[in-house]
């Protein structure tokens, strides 16, 4: 990093920028000296620092949606100015985006700040406002199955997105097989989405970063939100513990699907039961020790539970027969039993962060992370026979997959001059991967056969656990070379140690911005990213049974090289225009080999997959209206992405094939209109070219190895073949599903009550009931082929009632 030598006497202005009412820190607020024309922005903890020449300064503090504040004084020494911005109550418009950190003024490209208001104004399935659903509407992002939270960025797989919750990676980002994301909207403070120009502090995935920051909690007053919808309800509470010093934020969400379905189950499932529920809990405590020290402790737990089973409670008779069917005795007994099949999964994340201001130019954040993800599925059977027969049988088999991470991160923000914003730091994570564990417990106690009683626990020989140590260091310098050129060189180096082998990845990154005309900017960037975990998945539906596995000696780290160039125009008031084009090369992409898929325990997962490469290229257009009564954006993406594996890899005979979500065209229109203070209309219309699916249009012969058979019993000799038929697939992803388009509408009515605000929201998912093919399969009927297209989500109306107090 190169820093300009100081010229003349300089001093630093620093401090925190907060919301005036809640004292919540404001991320990405602009700080600008109108005299020297130098500026900076507040970091993710609301801290800012700017070093200026001594003399008169005219500071302006601004953030979208807040009233601008100015401070004019003579700078003669290092000065701390903590600014409290008040919300802009004069303007009634819906303000959608604040783009200072990631917009035209930033050196970075391919990134987007997503404030909560933007998330709230994205109509979604069942009225559940959702961070991920908003990201899906931005250019370069492809949806998975309609309505799900799966997203694929610039041709990357779903596991290539690093989703961070207060700095900790979230391994499973959705509930209900992808239809709800784990992020409770009321708990979210701000989301930043990166698809290129990745800051050096982010490592571990190769396609995108979603950095979700939760609310700290109001330092001044108690507030709350209660929202109830068709399938779920949410609660958010926040307030001071010690006014002005300590605050908390608590939010929870749960579903009551089982209760709603109970009348139907009672009618159709007499001795059986079905339950499904999920919940999320977010809790955060924030304490301000002084202007130099702050502590944040946050906790998240989210769980999904699915169970299906039955109960037995009846009197039975067992007849004893001889070899010829004659009854020679009977026993009467009572049979009481139960059995169930279950599937549970969830994340538990806890972080502790300590902010310390070493000096007006040096800010540090230290983070400790505990992160656990587990999935368990299995069955349980229990039977108790009493009476003439005394027998107790119990069996339980559980398959589990889990990851536990312990991490420590230290990040420094060093701002020696207005021309340089330097970030550097290091992190260490201890990973404990247990991708597959199968344990079976068996009890069988029969009073009549004591010799054959069983009481055992078996741990089957599945994949062994893997212990990984991940160490990374990074540095970046956002360097404003001149008034119209800025440069951001950065580099991260990661060392991943697993199974006594070290993998070192050097990840240089580079961004530059050139303001070639007023209101026009050109940006270019190159990023190398790497990741040391892979997600093995077999289905387009987000399944908890997908396996997170670490890199091994066979499965090398995946890397990406991303080249981007873009042009930006902000000459029209309230409007932003951008065009970005990119080329991405993915190396060591994981794909199941031909003939392999994961729907059972297939044994060594390392042997089931192969490593190949992928390319993706595209051009993205975005027109965005950032403020006013009507806001929104139109985006269009033209892209192509495919996968390429070596001929001997066992994948598609070495022939290139399209990526599953290689959707050629992608259009999103998002529109929000506010009518007065009480009524809002939100709408989004999306169009995607169809995804790709692997379909068999013919049958082929399968031959087994030699099969011995006796000639006298119809065999034909020593080596007898045994054959059958199976699906014949020419190429992976050989079928392009029909294009998908749909309209989602949300209508909100706001009503100010005496002590609270009431909001009715009516939403219509897939408003014109387009029968989009989400899944497809081929049916061979006599001599003709039929394609069965399965539409999972037709028109779904819903409502949400929200009280804010």
């Amino acid at each position, binding site marked *: 990093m190169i820093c300009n030598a100081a010229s003349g006497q300089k001093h630093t202005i620093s401090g925190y920028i907060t919301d005036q009412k809640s004292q919540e820190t404001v991320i990405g607020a602009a700080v600008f000296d109108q005299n020297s024309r130098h500026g900076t922005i507040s970091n993710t903890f609301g801290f800012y620092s700017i070093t200026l020449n001594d003399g008169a300064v005219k500071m302006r503090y601004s953030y979208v949606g807040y009233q601008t504040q100015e401070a004019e004084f003579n700078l003669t020494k290092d000065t701390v100015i903590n600014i409290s911005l008040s919300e802009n109550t004069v303007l009634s418009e819906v303000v959608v985006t604040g783009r200072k950190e990631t917009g035209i003024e930033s050196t970075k490209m391919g990134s987007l700040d997503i404030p909560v208001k933007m998330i709230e104004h994205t109509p979604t399935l069942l009225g559940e406002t959702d961070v991920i659903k908003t990201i899906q509407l931005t250019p370069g992002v492809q949806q998975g199955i309609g309505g799900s939270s799966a997203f694929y960025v610039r041709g990357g797989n779903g596991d290539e997105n690093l989703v961070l919750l207060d700095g900790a990676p979230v391994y499973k980002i959705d509930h209900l097989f992808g239809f709800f994301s784990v992020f409770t909207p009321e708990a979210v403070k701000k989301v930043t989405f990166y698809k290129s120009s990745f800051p050096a502090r982010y490592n571990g995935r190769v396609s995108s970063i979603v950095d979700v920051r939760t609310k700290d909690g109001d330092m001044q007053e108690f507030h709350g939100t209660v929202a109830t919808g068709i399938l779920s309800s949410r609660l958010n509470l926040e307030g001071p513990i010690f006014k002005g010093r300590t605050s908390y934020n608590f939010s929870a969400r749960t579903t009551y699907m089982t209760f709603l379905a109970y009348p139907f189950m009672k009618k159709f499932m007499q001795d059986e039961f079905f339950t499904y529920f999920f919940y999320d809990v977010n809790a955060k405590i924030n304490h301000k020790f002084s202007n130099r020290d702050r502590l944040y402790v946050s906790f998240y737990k989210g769980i999904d539970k699915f169970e299906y089973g039955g109960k037995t409670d009846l009197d039975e008779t067992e007849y004893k027969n001889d070899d010829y069917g004659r009854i020679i005795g009977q026993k009467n007994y009572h049979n009481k039993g139960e059995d169930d099949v279950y599937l549970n999964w969830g994340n538990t994340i806890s972080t502790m962060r300590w902010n310390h201001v070493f000096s007006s130019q040096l800010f540090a954040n230290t983070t400790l992370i505990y992160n656990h993800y587990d999935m368990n599925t299995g069955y349980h059977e229990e039977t108790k026979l009493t009476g003439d027969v005394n027998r107790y049988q119990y069996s339980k088999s559980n398959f589990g997959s889990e990851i536990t991470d312990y991490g420590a991160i230290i990040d420094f923000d060093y701002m020696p001059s207005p021309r340089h914003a330097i970030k550097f730091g290091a992190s260490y994570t201890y990973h404990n991967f247990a991708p597959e564990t199968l344990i079976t417990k068996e009890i069988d106690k029969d009073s009549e056969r004591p010799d054959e009683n069983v009481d055992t626990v078996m741990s*089957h020989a599945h994949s062994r656990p893997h212990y990984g140590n991940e160490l990374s260091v990074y540095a970046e310098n956002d360097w404003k070379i001149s008034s119209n050129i800025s440069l951001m060189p950065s580099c991260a180096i990661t060392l991943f140690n697993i199974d006594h082998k070290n993998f070192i990845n050097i990840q240089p990154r580079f961004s530059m911005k050139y303001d070639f005309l007023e209101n026009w900017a050109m940006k270019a960037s190159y990023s190398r990213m790497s990741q040391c975990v892979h997600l093995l998945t077999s289905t387009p*539906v987000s399944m908890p049974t997908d396996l997170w596995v670490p890199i091994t000696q066979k499965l090398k780290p995946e890397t990406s090289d991303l080249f981007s160039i873009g042009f930006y125009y902000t000459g029209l008031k309230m409007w932003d225009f951008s065009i970005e084009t990119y080329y991405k090369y993915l190396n060591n992409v994981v794909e199941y080999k*031909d003939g392999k898929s994961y729907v059972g325990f*297939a*044994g060594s997962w390392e042997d089931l997959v192969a490593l190949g490469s992928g390319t993706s290229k595209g051009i993205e257009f975005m027109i965005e209206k950032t403020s006013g009564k009507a806001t929104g954006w139109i985006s269009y993406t033209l892209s192509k992405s495919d996968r390429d594996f070596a001929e001997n890899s066992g994948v598609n005979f070495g022939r290139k094939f399209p990526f599953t979500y290689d959707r050629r065209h992608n259009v999103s229109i998002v529109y929000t209109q506010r009518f007065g203070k009480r009524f809002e209309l939100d709408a989004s219309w999306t169009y995607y070219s169809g995804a790709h699916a*692997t379909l068999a249009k013919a049958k082929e012969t399968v031959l087994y190895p030699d099969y011995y058979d006796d000639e006298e019993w119809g065999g034909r000799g020593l080596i007898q073949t045994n054959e059958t038929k*199976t699906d014949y697939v020419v190429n992976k992803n050989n079928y392009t599903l029909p294009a998908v388009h749909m309209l989602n509408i949300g209508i909100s009515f706001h009503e100010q009550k005496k002590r609270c605000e009431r909001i009715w929201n009516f939403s219509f998912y897939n408003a014109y009931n387009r029968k989009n093919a989400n899944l497809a399969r081929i049916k061979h009927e006599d001599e003709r082929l039929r394609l069965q297209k399965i539409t999972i989500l037709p028109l779904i109306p819903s409502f949400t009632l929200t009280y804010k107090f």
Partner: protein
Amino acid sequence: MKRIFSMIFSALLLIGCNTYEDITLDETVGTLGINGFLYSQCDTNKVLVTLTGIGSPAPVKNATVELRVNGQLCETKTASDSLQGKYYGLKTIFNPGDHIRVDVYYGNQHAYAEDVCPAAPKDLDAAVEFEENYAYRDAYDEFEIDDLYKVTMSFADADGSKENYYRVSLDKHYGYEGIVEKVESKTIYVEYENYPEDNYSYTMDTVYYCHGIKHLHRSGIADIANYITTYENNPELRPEERIYDSYFWDDVCNYFRIFKNTSFAGGRCTMTFHEDVNFADYNHIRDYDKNGRKVRYWHDEKWPTPPSEFKYSTDEELNDIPTYFYYETVSVESYSAQGYELLQTLNSYISGQYSISELTGSVKMYSNVSGGTGYIAAVSRISKIVKVIDGYQPEPIKDFEEPQN
């Protein structure tokens, strides 16, 4: 696991809706498929030639099949020599280390596949001993304790300097020499204590307890009676080496018993199998049908149906002293890396892993055929016969008592 997937898919179908459309045929129909496991030192190898088709593949009777060994054209067949019209017998003998190439021409299609015949494993040894009260978990995940025969086999790795791929196969030879007895026609009374109205009686035909008058010889991928139980060089079996199946989990079972030399490279591999020979007791021919002497074998439908001209024992034969025998042919086969991939695929296929294509999409079958589909694998094999039971005399079956009316 498959059940979980199926339940989820059913739920998706329940909330969703279906539409159908016809798909036009394309070039995927009529693609040349060639399949074959070609054994070294064998003159009865066969290549299967078919065309892919809707519903089922079609046999190809008059293709031209060429076998090249180390680049030399050794054999050409221009017509199928099997009854079904799709197998092409090859008499050329090749050796481990030879490069094998099979070319098939049909119409304007040309498909070919290549493999290098791997070195054969060496020095196969096998022995058997009786083991009482052996505890194990059967193929249905049930805990069992049985008296079993323990077969221990060992062999030397073909080449310790590289990864080798093996398959163990066990082939049973068992049968009876003699007939146990004949039970004359009797009247059977069936009584139901709680449902006396359902009581009935019938006259049973003569019952023949024929403990096998034939020499049976079978093996099969679905054989659940024998499986690898320990693996001396690696006491904990690697998952892919297990034959263990779980009813619930739908594991990919190692039906073909394939494994690598990972833990014994350059050395010897020792394995034990436990054989349940009780199945032999089921090999009785019983007839409770009062309408005639229709004989059936044990319930396992995979067993061959007896030929209609099945010969019943004569009264004279019934007086013979029965003995039965049982021996195993233990074989170790060596495959190339692509042959191993293929067998892994077949393990997945037989385990039913392709049956939920609604969620996973169709699974592309492994192939090493250029210009078509299918696979050709070159195999080297060594075998040894182990006597498990020789001359065993089972207890005579007790006659039943006449019910007292």
